[in-house]
Structure formats: structure tokens, C-alpha cells
């Protein structure tokens, strides 16, 4: 009796162990079925990094699978009116995710995506900095470098 109980327990342990490792590929789709995707929200910020209220439309988000063949490695989506994006179903792998909006510094993040995983990756895009220089004053009359000021070189070339 006791030996039989022990056997059953042993089988259960084994089953649990199997479920924990290889078994997840069978169990998970049934239990929590969801495709592997990356999604998130893109926020815009000014030159100093302070977030601004305007929500970005049509930020391009590229998902580059660094572990796949080159020709099928890049998938792109655009954000919606609220700045949200969601990738299509992706094969698992190491992804470089890039958010790109003209006039803003391109942001990239590395994401390790496992099977059926749903990753949230938010981005903040900073406006590219421009300087605001000052108006420059005109020259004083004799303050212009002129090749004629320089001693003329000797004849010949």
C-alpha cells in the first residue's frame, strides 16, 4: 500500500517536472493562448527630455529579429492616434525594437521574446536638439580676410 502510494507520488512528480520543462509547449497554448507580440506606447518629449502632451501619430516602429534570416527579419508598424503600437505575431527570438519619427532621436531597445510572450516596451522620443545661435555682426571695413592681404607667393606653381 505504502509502496503503491510512493509510486503514484513519483509519477506525479515526474509529470510536474515534465510540465515545467517541455510540457509548457503543450499546456500553455491551451491554458493561456496568446501569440508572441511586442506592444507599448510612444511618448514624445522636447529637446531636454521633458514629455510633451501631444501624442505622436505614425511613429514607425521596426521589429528587427536579429536571430532570423535577413530577408524576413524586419517587421514595421505605425503607432495609432494615442501613440500605441502592437506588433503582429512574431516568431520568438532576440529583437531590436526601433522607434523612429522624423525630427526625433531614434530610440532602440533589445527585447528577448519567448514563445507566446507578450512584452510591453514603452518609448520616449526626444526631439533632436538644435542650437539657437545669435545674429552675427558685419565686418569692420578692413576686417575681411582677403587673399590679397597675404604676401604673394613667388612665381611658379
Amino acid at each position, binding site marked *: 500500500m505504502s509502496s503503491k502510494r510512493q509510486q503514484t507520488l513519483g509519477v506525479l512528480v515526474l509529470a510536474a517536472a515534465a510540465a515545467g520543462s517541455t510540457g509548457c509547449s503543450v499546456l500553455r497554448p491551451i491554458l493561456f493562448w496568446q501569440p508572441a507580440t511586442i506592444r507599448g506606447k510612444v511618448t514624445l518629449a522636447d529637446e531636454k527630455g521633458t514629455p510633451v502632451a501631444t501624442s505622436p501619430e505614425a511613429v514607425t516602429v521596426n521589429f528587427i529579429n536579429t536571430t532570423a534570416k535577413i530577408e524576413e527579419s524586419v517587421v514595421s508598424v505605425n503607432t495609432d492616434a494615442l501613440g500605441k503600437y502592437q506588433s503582429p505575431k512574431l516568431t520568438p527570438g532576440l529583437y531590436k525594437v526601433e522607434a523612429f519619427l522624423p525630427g526625433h532621436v531614434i530610440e532602440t531597445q533589445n527585447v528577448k521574446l519567448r514563445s507566446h510572450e507578450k512584452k510591453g516596451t514603452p518609448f520616449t522620443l526626444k526631439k*533632436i536638439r538644435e542650437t539657437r545661435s545669435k545674429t552675427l555682426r558685419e*565686418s569692420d571695413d578692413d576686417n575681411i580676410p582677403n587673399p590679397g592681404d597675404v604676401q604673394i607667393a613667388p612665381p611658379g606653381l
Partner: protein
Amino acid sequence: MKKASLGIVGIVLLLAGLVACTPPPPPTVTLEVTASQPDGAPISGVAVSVNGEAKGETKDDGKLNVPLAGPEPGTDLTVKASLERPGVKFTPVEQQVVVRRYDATKPETLRLPVALTMTAVEAVSEIAVESAGMPVAGAEIKLDGKKVGVSDAAGLYKVQLAPALSRQAKVAVSVKGYEDYTEDATLAGGSRVTVSLAKRGANAVVRVVQEKLGRWAAVDGAEVTVDGQRAGKTDASGAVKVVAPSKDAKVEVRKAGWQPEPAKARLAAGSASEVTVVLSPSSAPTYRIAVLPPTSSIIGDKELDDLLPEVEERLTDFLFAHSVFERVDPEALQKAMKASKLTTKKMLDSGWDGTALGPVADAVVATIVSKSEGDLVLSIRAVSVKGKTIAGLAEAGKATKVRLICEQATDKILEAFPFEGHVLEAQPGRLVTTLGKAGDRGVKRGGSMAVYRVAPGKGKGVSLTEVGQGKVKGVEDTRSEIEVAQTVKAQVGDKVSWVPPQTAATMDGLVTFTVKAGKEGTERAMGDVTVYRNGVWVGSTSPTGEIKVPVPTGQKVSFIFVRGGIPAHVEQLKIERGTDRLSVLMPAAMTRLKLDSEPSGAKVVVDGEDMGVTPLETDIFMGFHRVRVEPVAGDWRAFDKVLEFVSLEENLTGDKKIVLTKDVMKESEIRLARGDVDGAISILEAVQKDHPDFSQAHHRLAGIYLDEKKDADRAIQEFETVLSLPENRELVNKRFAVTFLNLGRAYYLQKGYDKAIADLTIARDNKRFFPRENHDRATHDTLYYLALSSHKLYYAQRSERVLQETAARWKDYFDFFPESLKEDEEVKTARSGSEHFYEEIKRKLGGE
């Protein structure tokens, strides 16, 4: 017998009759032929014949007048008209015309109008499709959106226009592998529209140039290969667009009749890369020389003035007797100088590359005629397009022997001119070059030649690196052989240049001259005096009148000292020791200057020298002087002008005294420093057009609006006011070159990117006139805002052309990073931001 006499009488009578009754000339009847199409449009070039006799062709208005001398009324005339030339054919027409009765006193009866209506049966326009000089076959052609056909093997497509002769059409051409092309073109019978396609992804550029006297010239029609693949032929600008290689590629350039081996270069990987390849012609160049009218160095010397035309004529005759020199037409020279506002001084000091004269002349010859103790002195300078003295000499002699002096001077130019050629064959120790003695080039056996490697230098400049020198072993007309050291690594296509013997001679001594002028006791140091040694130009004196001249010791050397405004001076010397110091006193014509100012008591500075306070009287050389009158106290503006003194006495007192004005610049500056921005604005705004500081005040005002008031609109208005003055817009007044940068920046801030680009481009092209103390900063800002404006314009337009331009402009921006700006915080910020912008453009070019 009787018969004979009768015959004679008859002949006499007949002759008499002829003499007495010659009828008046018959009136001319004019056949007025008009050829037109059914819609009334005139047809030119129609061949008209009358009764089988060709009478000419109709003109642009479709008309041809055929005069008929006294035709018999009632005569039938057959008028035929036809037009047939390649691509255009009309149905021939024929019309019968009867000559009506006419009366010479009624002009209207003398006109015989003939209207011919002709219909085109053939009007073929060709569309020629090509890319980089090669025809493109199989290109699809659309006219106004409708597909009409494809180009044939020769890249041609024929469009039948008849019965119309021409039409406007939107021509669209597309073919795999090339960028699409559209153009609004006029297709006309017998004419050809050439469509040049760019290879898709062809965003790298190979430029082919040749060098002459330190300047590039584009080489067209040169065949370019990239990694062995034909990439095309260069266009008129010497460029051909090629597909950017993924890794560094080998470029080879060939052109029939040019250097025997291809010129080679590497094209770097990546889009928008560019390479410039130097190709050498297979014959030595000739030189287009503009001879400037000689000037006299002594103002008002009638004897010299009278000699000027003869000097010009003789020099021109002698110079252009040698076929290596081609004359630039004097009228074309004057026209080009006028168009580009070139003065002689400007040309001699800084050259004329990039002006209207640039493409016309390789060198100018300027002559100053002077005299020294009765002798006539010619000093001649040949200056290259880059403003470099390539030959300078002086020749003296009796004033009665102008012809001889000019002949000798010409010989010296030929001796001193650095004639150029190229290496045709290169073996260790021995080179064959294209530089021979043809055309009277002064190349002689035993002389020297320098060998240079020619490469693109900074900016658009030419970099010449001396590879070595050699001795001329043999000279033919178009070839020479030179011996070089075994270590000299010359290659085919390298440049060779004749080294004038004077330059090559050993100068083992050194003499320092101090040149002064004036009457003894009151003499003053003279700068800008040109010095010639044995007739060859050696340089000019410094402002302290000093010049060091290398000389051969132990032999007699002649020196000539020349300066505009005073007679020349000749000195014969024998230098025994290694070094020597000598003083030279030049006679000079003096002006008595009387000067007063309102208010008086102001300091007077002439050519940088303190002369005292007004009112004053002093002696001064005749000629041009910079006169500055500075008030000692108060907010007065200094008077500062270049004046010319030509008479024995110049009186600037009484009515002519110098009236000083209040210094608005200083006053506005003081207010601004106190934080009174509006006060500064009101002072500057009050400055009217007739005020000497008008431009400066409004330039400053614009800056205040932009920086202090953040009002780009007002700033633009004021900058434009400054540039509305022609002298500022045309950059005669160069100090306002920087205004184009400021205006461009204002337009940028206002999002007027097109205008910003236009003004910033002017600023960039004239950056040499930026103020010295912030020259680098101004250049940086110009390139920065140019690239930024271009970038923002690309956001708005998304056109391929703007993308390419933007890439090039960012590249220009990154290329400019002088030492002086490396620690500048703002520049650092600008550059780090710019890298992100450039990254965007690179992505777009990468074919996103």
C-alpha cells in the same frame, strides 16, 4: 554701195533712238506669298518657285516677297510651294496667279498677294532616351499620361505630330533600373527631346577634371568604369552618377586622345559618396591671356600717357605671335569685368575664378608704365585665375625704343612662364612628357622641370605635391624627355612644369632693402613697392619699406623699384659679401594737403600714420590714401575713406571740410548694454538712407529684433532693407556678406526653407568675406542652417532631389570642424544633434 550706206544710217538712227528714248525702268510688281497652316499659323522655310524658278524661302512670319520687274498684265504665273526637311513634310501646293493691270502711281495695284494653305503630312519629333551618354532601349514612353510606345535600340522614339507641327506634352519615361522621369516638353517636327535618365540608386558621383594653372576644368565625354563595369560617360559638368558600391570600388577613367593609361581612383562604399579623378590631356595646354590696358604710374604725366596705346599694341603683337598664347578678345574682357564688377586690383590680388571672366581667361597680363631718369620702365605681371603671380618682370630702356623694350619683355615672359605638360611614359630615372617646345614654349635642353602629383585639395582647391625634379635631356615639338633620380616615383598622368632658369639659379647672397620716398629729410618708408631683380619679379616691400632679396654674389645685378603713383627707380649693384643692407630713396610727387573738420580738433590718421589734429596742413604722396578723421570726444562717428590726391594742393577746408555725424552705432550700443532694448531700437530705426551708417544700423536693428524681440518677421524686413541696396546685395560692400547668413537664419526660424536655402547658399559661396574674428563661427552657422533648412524642406516635399542635396549639405557641415570651434559648447550641441539628423537622411538614402 548704196545698201551699205543705208545700213550705216540705219544703225546710227537706231543708236540715236536708243540713247534718246531709253524708257523709264518698269515698275516692280511684288508677289506677296504667305504660307500658313489651315488654322492660320505661319509656316517658315517654305521653298517658293514661280514658273519653275526658285525664289527663296518664307521667313518666320510665313511671308516671302518676290519682286517681278514689269510683268505683262494678263501673264499667268504658276506659284509652287513645298517644304520637306528631315522630320517635317508638307503636301506641296500649286496656285495660278494672273498679273492684273497695274499703275505705277497707285502703289496698291503693285501688290499681288498669294495666300497658300499647306497641311503637314509628316511632323516627327524624336524622343531620345539616354543615361550617362549611352542610349537606353525599351523605355516605356507616355505622353500626357497615355502610353505611346517604347524606345528602340538607339534609344529613340518617334512621335508623329501631323497635321500639327508641334505640341506641348508631359513626357514620362520609365524603364526598369532607372529613376522615373517626367518633363513638360515642346515636341516639334524635326527636333529632338533628349531625356537623361538616372540609374536607380545612382547616388554616388564620379567627377572627372583636368588641371591647368592651379584650377580645375570639367572633362566631359570621359568613360568611367566602376570595378570593371561601364558606368557611363561624364556630362558637361564632368560628372557621372553611378550606383553606390557596397564596398570600396575601383574607378577607372579613359578618354580617347587623353592620357594613354586610364586614371584610377577609389570610390568609397556608401551612398552619396563622391570621388574626383584627375585626367590629363595628351598634349600640353595653351593659355588664354587677357592683356589689361597698361596704366601709367605717374598721374598726369602726358609723355607716359601718350605712350600707353603703343605699349599695348606692341606687347599684344609680340605676345600673341607665339601660338602658346591665345588672346582674350578685349571687348569680351571688358564685358566680363563689368558684369562681375571686377577691378584690376581685385583680379591681381585675389583672381577671378568663379566670376564671368573665369571661363574666358587663364591668365591676365597687367603692365605698369613708369620712368626712371629718362628711361622707360615696363613692369609686367602675369597672374593666374587664382590670383597667383605666375610670371613677373621689368624691362627698362630708352623711351624711343618702345618696340625693342616690348619685344624683350615678351621674351622674358616666355622664359619665366611655368609651362605645363603631363607624363606620358614613366620609367625609373626617365620620363617622357607632353611638354615640348612647340608654340615657343621656353623649354630647353639642360633646363629643369618639376613633377607634381595632382589631387583634389581642400574645398574645391587643387593640391599639388612635388614628386621630384628632373633635367631636360631632349626636346621635340610636342614631347620632351627628362632625367630624374631613380627614387622619383612618377606615374603616367602626373603634371610637369617648366622651372624658369632664373628661379633655378644659385642665390648665395641676401640683401635687405629699406625703401623710402619723399624729399630728403622728410622721407617716409614705402610699402607696396614691387621689386625686380635682373628684370624678374621678386616681391613687394612690407609696410615698413623692407624687403629681403636673394642675390648671386660677386656679379652685377640690376634692381628696379616700381610703385603706382611715383616714378620708378633703377639701381645697379654688386654684392660682395653674403648679406648686406641698403637704403633706397625714391623720388615722389607730393601733394600739399589742407584739412579741416566740423567739429574741429579731430585726430587725422593717413594710411595708419598719425598726422595730428584738425585743422592741419601736411605733405603727402600723390595717389590713393586712406584718410581717417576721428573725433577725440563725444559720440561722433569717425570719417574713414580712401581718397585720391592728384594735384599739387588738395584743399579740404571751408566748404569742403569734413563734416562729422553723430555715432548712432555707439549710442545704440550703450542703450543695449543698459538693457534698454526699445531705446536702442528707436535710435537705429531713425537712421535714414542718406546716413553713412544706414546699412550697419539696420543690420544691427534686424539682429535686435531677431535675438531680443524674437520677431523674425521684422528681422527679415530689416535684413532685406540692408540687402536691397545694390552694393550690399552684389557684395561690392563685402562686409555685409554675413547678412546673408543672418537673413537665411531668420527665414529658417520662420520656416521659409526655400528662401533660407537661397540666402545661405549665397553666404556659403562668399564666406571668404565673413568678418575675421568670427569667421569660423559664421561658416559653421551657415553650413548648419543650410543643412537644417534643406532637411526641413525634405520633410515638407519628400523629393529625391532635396534628399540628395540634404545629404551633401550635412556632409559639408561635418567636413567643417576647425580647431577654433572644438571647445565651443554651442557648436558641440549643434554637432551632436546634427548626427541624429544625418542618421535620418542616411536611412532614407539606404532605401527605406
